[in-house]
């Protein structure tokens, strides 16, 4: 499992998992799972357009995912975010349907672009994937503080001079880059599983942002490694294991939070009761004194 062509697979998959874990932290924090699903599907149309135009697939992927990112950002000014995302998604897919109908040599790649063919990915793809991945991570690192503040509360961000619209666009462009990078590896329909399950799981176990980020990367990498290993043995598709393990990690995290929460709220109830039992702390609770 670790020899020859599989080395490329392990390397590429790890790079994808690390980047997906980093970006996924914000996908979950911002509630942007829909965009994380929509952009890859839109990029898929870009691959069809590229085939039609005779240019490299990567150009089409990047082009259409950026187009999708900008489209969602602009349309979000007028409409709710989920409606904007849905509309951009269907328009891009509609165009994809058109391009697919015009080109006939494209058909066999569709399955791999939808579901991924990480086992057997070629060596030549390492460089563009690594470069795009590095770009993603740098984009997140550079904007870490304003992006985090804006994600917690857009209002507090605005007051600090951080435009929430600009941060949303920046984040969508990061998503576009992850999309273009991960699509050939894990496929359009599953790249977002890596960006949703692992971060959701990680944040249940820690309340510190940088630890949650590291945890998200860790869970994503472990998920991908496990998925590849089992897929190699059973020949079942990698995407199946990614989806199932991701969901499993999410449920483990949710159960842990629920368990901790039940314990803590019990403590809170006891503390609150103790305060109420005692006398009021100051006499002013009977009525406010005269104004100055």
């Amino acid at each position, binding site marked *: 499992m670790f020899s020859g062509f599989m080395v490329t697979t392990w390397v590429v998959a790890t790079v994808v998992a690390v980047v997906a874990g980093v970006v996924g932290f914000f996908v979950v924090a911002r509630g*942007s799972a829909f965009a994380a699903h929509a952009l890859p599907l839109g990029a898929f149309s870009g691959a069809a357009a590229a085939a039609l135009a005779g240019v490299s697939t990567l150009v089409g992927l990047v082009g259409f995912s950026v187009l999708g990112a900008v489209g969602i950002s602009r349309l979000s000014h007028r409409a709710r975010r989920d409606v904007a995302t849905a509309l951009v998604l269907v328009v891009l*897919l509609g165009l994809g349907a058109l391009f697919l*109908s015009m080109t006939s040599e494209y058909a066999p790649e569709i399955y791999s672009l939808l579901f991924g063919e990480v086992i057997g990915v070629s060596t030549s793809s390492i460089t563009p994937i690594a470069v795009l991945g590095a770009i993603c991570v740098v984009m997140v690192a550079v904007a870490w503080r304003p992006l985090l503040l804006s994600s917690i509360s857009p209002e507090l961000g605005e007051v600090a001079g951080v435009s929430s619209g600009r941060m949303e666009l920046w984040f969508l462009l990061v998503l576009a880059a992850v999309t273009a990078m991960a699509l050939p590896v894990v496929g359009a329909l599953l790249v977002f599983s890596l960006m949703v399950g692992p971060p959701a799981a990680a944040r249940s176990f820690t309340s510190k942002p940088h630890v949650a980020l590291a945890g998200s990367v860790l869970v994503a990498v472990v998920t991908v490694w496990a998925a590849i290993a089992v897929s190699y043995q059973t020949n079942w598709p990698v995407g199946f294991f990614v989806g199932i393990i991701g969901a499993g990690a999410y449920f483990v995290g949710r159960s842990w939070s629920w368990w901790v929460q039940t314990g803590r709220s019990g403590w809170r109830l006891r503390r609150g009761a103790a305060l109420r039992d005692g006398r009021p702390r100051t006499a002013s609770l009977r009525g406010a004194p005269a104004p100055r």
Partner: protein
Amino acid sequence: MHAAFGWLVEPGFFSSAPVRTAALVGGVAAVVSGIVGAFTVMRGQSFAGHALADVSAAGGSAAFLIGISPLLGFVGMAGLAAGGMEAVGVERARGRDLATGIVLGAGLGLAALLLYFDSTSTSTTGAAISVLFGSMFAIAPSIIPWAAGLSALVALAVLLAYRPLLLSSLDPDLAAVRGVRVRVFETLHLLALAAAVALSALTIGAILSTALLVGPGAAALRVARRPGWSLVWAAGIGLGCTWLGILLAYDSYDWPPGHRGWPVSFFIVALVFVAYVAGGIFHRVRRDRRDHRDRRGTSARQAHATAGSA
């Protein structure tokens, strides 16, 4: 009369059997999607609608390849996914986006597995394409009664539950205070959604089911003044875009480059988007005119008041 229509409608349109089937099934799916979609947009559940369409389409078509009836596969898969979403708690505002994503990821993973189990590679690819984009002119006529029946059922359920469903969509807390069992209507909405998108995905593809769910609904909510009318508008816009799209797709048979016709899903999506933009413009124009009218009224009232107090 014939001459006037001639440039728009290619010969043979009204007599073609696939066209009739497409218009019937597509029309029925559009009306139901429009009605349910208006509520879906109100509840902010567009992602759930799309997720259900994807899962039902991919999983259902794969199940069909194994050998179950397609409608059963699609609707069953959608129902399963809807149940999963309800259990995970997708309708609650907090964490809904995440819950939908998890169910979608798991569902698509399952679909990947089912598609893999089918050994022939060509039908795998073909299945993937028809899953996403649909094959509207290749719908089996035997589906028509089932499609019509299911749509009627869903539409009836939504219309019967109209008032509590509307209230719980607009303000769940207020609805709970009024005695509406909010959880029940969450489940009802998800089931209606599952049925609507499964029906659409089976016949017209997963993309279109999302387009006909969200687009007409969102446009209608901007155009209509009263909620009841938004349902009418949504159904009407969806139906209009579908029929016009079918017409254009039929007409495009001779168009370049492939002379195979442009896909109907492209036309319908494009028309839905145009309808949405038009709805937005109409809404803004009407708002500006109303502001202008109010301003003139205010200054008239102020003039009257100062004249009266002198």
